């Protein structure tokens, strides 16, 4: 397994707070597959800056309310 990216996120939490939006619906809204949303939520994949902004804008929050930096 590869090293996990040092980026944390609250995507799952925000998705559940938005009428339990499905992973597929979120993926479709921001232009990625359901599998990519799963990988982001599990911290196995760091999205591009564009996708990160799309997710944050969709939830109506700032980028740093969704993503955080972990470690040094």
């Amino acid at each position, binding site marked *: 397994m*590869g090293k996990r990216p040092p980026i944390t996120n609250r995507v799952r939490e925000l998705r559940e707070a938005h009428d339990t939006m499905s992973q597929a619906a979120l993926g479709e809204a921001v232009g*990625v597959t359901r599998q990519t949303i799963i990988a982001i939520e599990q911290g196995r994949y760091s999205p591009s800056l564009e996708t990160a902004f799309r997710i944050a804008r969709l939830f109506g929050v700032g980028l740093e309310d969704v993503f955080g930096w972990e470690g040094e």
Partner: protein
Amino acid sequence: MSFREKSAWVMAAVLLAVGAFYVKLVAVDGVPPQAAAIPFVLFSVVLSVVAQIVLAIASPKEAASPADERERLVIDKAGHFSSYVLAVGVLTGLGHFMLSADGGRMFHIVLTCLILSQLAEYGAQIFLLRRSV
């Protein structure tokens, strides 16, 4: 399982079947390389097209969608990995030809490594799609 992963599994299976057919033609039936390559290419193309059509019918929406950013990264990494397999095969074939001047065997080595490199690419895609990237 994502559409890309399904596609990689199906294409690997097609290539494995057609590759086995090619090896049988050459190693068991003793067909010369030029004659074995034509049915190999024909079957590869026809079966790949049929497999992709079946996949597209089964998942039309996913088939019509372009690869997303993670899938593109996976495809790039897998292609990069498989290029090493192909390079080793080509160099082995050329080295063998320099020593033996056997063009027929060089053809077999290069074509076999082309098949192996494609299998390596599909395998790497499946691995990376499951691991993420």
